[in-house]
């Protein structure tokens, strides 16, 4: 073992110990999601005819393919790949990037690396240990997915190819995160950069599938070439249950080799605690805009907000332009309409409304993700101890937490509007009725607001009531609402279980809206938020 890697094993054990709950939860959740989706296929689409019908619609509906995948056939395994594999790869990407940053940059930021670095460990040991742990986690994930799919009765080859595809994507993203961790100054920025890479990879893959070529049989397709540029694209190019092209695994592994080599080279050249993108001197005085709890909250959250806003606008542009293609389809195909309605949650409404409702549901999940992240920033301020100095000034607890809630909520409201207006602009520009479309789509977007706010209220209540575990609980609630809400119909989840998710209660078009769910969710959001604020006023600060 070279001296720059001395102590790697010890650090890896330390990382495993720190992650003894977190990584298993990630791995089990991802594998469970896959198993759940696979077992639901049989009940949801029992006959070959059902499957052909849904795939025929899908291949003609680019907007849906972004969230599924290019279909490869009608077997159970192929339907599972179509339905869930891209999302599993996405989640493996987030698991890996968060873990790599946690064990490298975040350690450095908190000074733990210095303490460790002063003991008998090599310079590269920390990064090596982090990568070893994350690669191990992805191997475990790959095996688990393979086992659960095979256990469900799918062909073993395809099952393990699907697992390997997901694990390999996670490994490729680990390498990308390792580079991001070297480039930036802080863990937050590194996480942002790595998450952007994962999101972009997902979107590129989605667009490549959406604009792929339909085969002559009318229900399978090959993706467009950009799919080969994305680690999540590689997962699907492996074609599990449809040829199992194992050689495609070479791509993520080469990507991992190149990125980790780059990360080690960068790590060897920089000092502990610094990034390659150095800090420039900043203002010596605070601008008036910063001076107050609201100004401070805005300053701390604006970076997150801008990142998410760019994502939302990009998404809106894609959805708006795809809207036109969907419209053309609907004009010509009666069968498509019914299926699309099914995929959008059922109910038999206007077909275009169904399409946009399905898209808005995904946008709402993104906005809720932003809102949860922004609100948990308040908890991070508390656990890092920074809030003590602030609350020791003449700033009350309500003003401080209220500042974060106001900034985060206003950001979410703005983002929903931004989504509606962007889609309306792009769609209206070619479909006509520009002004009307914008108004209609903005209204459709705001139908999601009560559901989004319900999660926000829950986040505030949890961070006030159970601060120490609020982060995990809130993200868990978010993931649950996401899986049971927009994706619930796809997995054939019973209605009563789906009802847990606020997203299940969102009407699909303004014309369909009834007061009851909107009032109920708004009231729940308000009650949870107020309960949280009241509790936070009365409790000890918790580090």
């Amino acid at each position, binding site marked *: 073992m070279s001296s720059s890697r001395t102590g790697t094993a010890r650090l890896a054990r330390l990382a495993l110990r720190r992650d003894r709950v977190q990584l298993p939860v990630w791995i089990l959740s991802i594998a469970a999601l896959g198993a759940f989706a696979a077992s639901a296929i049989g009940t949801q689409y029992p006959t070959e005819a059902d499957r052909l019908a849904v795939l025929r619609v899908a291949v003609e509906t680019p907007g849906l393919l972004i969230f599924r995948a290019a279909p490869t056939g009608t077997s159970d395994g192929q339907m599972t790949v179509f339905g869930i594999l891209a999302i599993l790869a996405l989640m493996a990407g987030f698991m890996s990037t968060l873990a790599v940053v946690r064990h490298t940059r975040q350690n450095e930021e908190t000074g733990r690396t210095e303490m460790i670095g002063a003991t008998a460990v090599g310079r590269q040991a920390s990064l090596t240990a982090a990568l070893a742990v994350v690669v191990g986690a992805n191997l475990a994930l790959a095996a688990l997915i393979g086992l659960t799919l095979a256990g469900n009765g799918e062909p073993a080859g395809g099952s393990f190819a699907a697992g390997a595809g997901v694990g390999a994507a996670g490994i490729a993203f680990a390498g990308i995160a390792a580079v991001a961790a070297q480039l930036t100054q802080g863990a937050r920025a590194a996480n942002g950069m790595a998450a952007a890479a994962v999101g972009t990879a997902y979107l590129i893959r989605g667009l490549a599938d959406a604009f792929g070529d339909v085969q002559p049989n009318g229900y399978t397709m090959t993706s467009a070439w950009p799919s080969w540029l994305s680690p999540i694209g590689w997962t699907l190019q492996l074609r599990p249950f449809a040829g199992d092209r194992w050689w495609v695994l070479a791509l993520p592994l080469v990507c991992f080799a190149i990125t980790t080599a780059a990360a080690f080279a960068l790590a060897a050249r920089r000092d502990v605690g610094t990034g390659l993108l150095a800090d420039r*001197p*900043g*203002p*010596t*005085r605070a601008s008036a805009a910063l*001076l107050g*709890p609201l100004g401070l909250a805005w300053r701390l959250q604006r970076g997150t907000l801008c990142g998410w806003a760019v994502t939302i606008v990009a998404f809106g542009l894609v959805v708006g332009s795809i809207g036109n293609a969907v419209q053309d389809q609907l004009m010509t195909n009666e069968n498509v309409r019914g299926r699309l309605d099914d995929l959008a949650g059922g109910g038999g409404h206007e077909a275009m409304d169904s399409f946009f409702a399905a898209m808005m549901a995904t946008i709402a999940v993104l906005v809720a993700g932003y809102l949860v992240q922004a609100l948990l920033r308040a908890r991070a301020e508390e656990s890092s101890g920074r809030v*003590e100095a602030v609350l020791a000034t*003449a700033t009350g607890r309500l003003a401080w937490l209220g500042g974060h809630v106001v900034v985060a909520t206003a950001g979410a409201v703005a983002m929903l509007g931004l989504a509606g207006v962007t889609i309306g602009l792009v769609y209206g520009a070619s479909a006509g009725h520009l002004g009307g479309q914008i108004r209609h789509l903005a209204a459709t977007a705001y139908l999601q607001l009560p559901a989004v706010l319900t999660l926000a209220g829950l986040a505030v209540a949890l961070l006030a009531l159970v601060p120490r575990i609020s982060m995990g609980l809130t993200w868990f609630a978010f993931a649950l609402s996401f899986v049971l809400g927009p994706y619930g119909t796809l997995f054939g989840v019973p209605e009563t279980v789906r009802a847990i998710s606020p997203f299940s209660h969102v009407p699909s078009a303004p014309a369909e809206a009834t007061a009851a769910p909107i009032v109920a969710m708004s009231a729940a959001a308000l009650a949870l938020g107020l309960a949280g604020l009241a509790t936070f006023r009365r*409790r000890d600060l918790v580090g």
Partner: protein
Amino acid sequence: MTSAINVSGLVKTFGRVRALDGLDLHVDTGEVHGFLGPNGAGKSTTIRVLLGLLRAHAGTVELLGGDPWRDAVDLHRRLAYVPGDVNLWPNLTGGEAIDLFGSLRGGLDKRRRDELIQRFQLDPSKRARTYSKGNRQKVAIVAAFASDVELYILDEPTSGLDPLMEAAFQECVREVTRRGRTVLLSSHIFSEVEALCDRVSIVRQGRTVETGTLAELRHLTRTSVSVEATRPITGLTDLPGVHDVDVAATHATFAVDSGELNRVLGYLTQFDVRTLSSAPPSLEEIFLRHYGDELVGAR
């Protein structure tokens, strides 16, 4: 004299840990009060209760005539706090952080701010993540002393400062006390406490074990004496209050309880004292005497 801080019988538990166990603390207006105790004694916890960040479980706590939990916001306008662990926002510059704290507290004196930045040789244009520990502490110190308030609560404010900056800090404390302000100073640096404090309270395991002026505390402890006489010194060990005797014919060193000092000096005259030197106990010795058993013992 009115009191700025009045704590009695304060109890604070964290689960099964009894961090404060009937602590008393009285700080008079206009004094610099030293707050001493070994690691984990409960100093920071007491300060957090005083700031309304933690809620007391039992006992009475009065701060500037108010209740630190109920009247937190109003009281905080009248005090400034330097935390033991200075955590700043990595993206904000030191200058921004100073202005922010000043404004959250209700305004700061711009001239004084600039003058303090000069005095502490702080570069206010650097992002907080690039500051060293000492520089982060300077940001908190400048932010506190740039506000003219009635009470300064300082939790180990100088643990990372170099000697020059330590001197600058002591100067700041003297300036505010000259203007009649009150300072509560928690510190592990004895020279600093001896130089600045009018009175000190020593806590241990969540209780106050000693409180008073330095002179009063000295009175409770031993003075070390070294004496040279013409005749051989005998019988010292039989005197009450004399300890650690080491006699070599006409030379002797010993420690004596401060209350017995006069009688022992009278006894020594019969041996015809030629030279005598005595050293009052340092704060460190007082401190060690209180914690000596603890050093050997539990923690």
